[in-house]
């Protein structure tokens, strides 16, 4: 048996790097049994490979940093996670138009004789003008709420266990403003609070409204906080909810 190495360094390295076929590798293993100096070198190459892998392994143990998330998947930003049921880019712009069409249909319905606009604290009666508005009216649009006045939905906000809508009702004769918050409750809506602006008199109104401290939408904040409400949704996000009947 010859003492000269029959296998050169490159082939030994190829063995250490896993480049050889099973047959070739078996031949190298046979060779190494008789050549401890080559075995030592193969061990050293393998140890170096492992050391290199470990020396630069830190990024593999870390989550993808925010800067790359934001760059590569900008639409998966934290603000969007509350409505993660649908990626933002898949919402066609025409849905805003659909929402407008719905609002127009609502306007027709709202002028039908309506005994009760449904405007009181507590569950909103199914089929009432308020329920219809909460279901279908886009934020910013102004619609008559039965005989009660002009209703504007101010915003839709994600909240614990569902969504809330902040609204404002302006009485036709007096111009009095009521500010309210309604939230999803089961398959319907419930009004959490109504704040009435009582300009001169102060005190409670006949229907038990709480007086708001001036014409200040911030007065409703404590009720928003209680619901764990987040930032207002975008028009597209809101339109999608309206489109899907608020079921997420």
């Amino acid at each position: 048996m010859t003492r000269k190495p029959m296998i050169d360094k490159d082939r030994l390295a190829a063995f250490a790097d896993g480049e050889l076929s099973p047959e070739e590798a078996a031949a190298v293993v046979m060779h190494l049994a008789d050549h401890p100096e080559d075995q030592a070198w193969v061990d050293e190459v393998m140890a170096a490979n492992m050391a290199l892998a470990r020396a630069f392994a830190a990024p593999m143990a870390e989550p993808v940093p925010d800067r790359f998330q934001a760059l590569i998947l900008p639409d998966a930003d934290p603000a969007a996670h509350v409505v993660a049921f649908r990626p933002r880019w898949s919402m066609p712009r025409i849905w805003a138009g659909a929402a407008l069409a719905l609002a127009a249909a609502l306007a027709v319905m709202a002028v039908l004789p309506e005994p009760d606009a449904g405007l009181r604290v507590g569950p909103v009666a199914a089929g009432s003008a308020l329920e219809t508005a909460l279901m279908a009216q886009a934020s910013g649009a102004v619609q008559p709420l039965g005989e009660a006045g002009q209703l504007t939905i101010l915003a839709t906000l994600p909240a614990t266990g569902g969504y809330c809508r902040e609204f404002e009702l302006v009485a036709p004769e007096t111009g009095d403003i009521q500010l309210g918050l309604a939230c999803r409750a089961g398959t319907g809506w419930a009004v959490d609070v109504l704040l009435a602006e009582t300009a001169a008199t102060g005190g409670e109104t006949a229907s038990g409204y709480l007086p708001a401290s001036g014409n200040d939408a911030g007065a409703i904040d404590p009720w928003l906080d209680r619901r764990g409400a987040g930032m207002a949704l975008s028009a597209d996000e809101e339109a999608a909810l309206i489109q899907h009947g608020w079921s997420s």
Partner: protein
Amino acid sequence: MTDQGAEIAFRRELVGLVPKLRRFALSLAGHMQDADDLVQAACEKALKNRSQFQPGSRMDSWMYRIVQTLWLDDRRRHKVRGTSIDPEDAHLSDGGKAASLPEDRMMLAKVRVAMGSLPEGQREVLSLVAIEGLSYRETADVLGLPIGTVMSRLSRARDSLLPKLGLAEGHRQ
């Protein structure tokens, strides 16, 4: 697949590659901050040139290539001499996560310094083979080199790296 669907799939695959790209960039650049700047530039380039990526081909190879090209451009522009890794920084750059024993940490710091002292061409080849686990053929494809060049660079890289690591002693019989 719709074009929009393809773009989403592309972006998801890309974000999944970020840890490996950061590791590769770190092995080339030596500092996490430089590595992240490199990966950021590479991702921006990839997003801009998405049409040049062949769907169904390996995105990791494509991205390694982009990272490597940008790194070389950057090196040429700044023309820093030799290593840019100082032992102190190399010692701390993994926050001690990869190693528990002090001797082990010392050894890994030595590996980083030794890697930083290799010429660019050797460092790229060694990183793709030993760290990223690519075959010689895949490495040759990523770097656009003949496979013989990959093997000779690998050989020279080991000739200069191995004696600096002092790994041999424990294995001598």
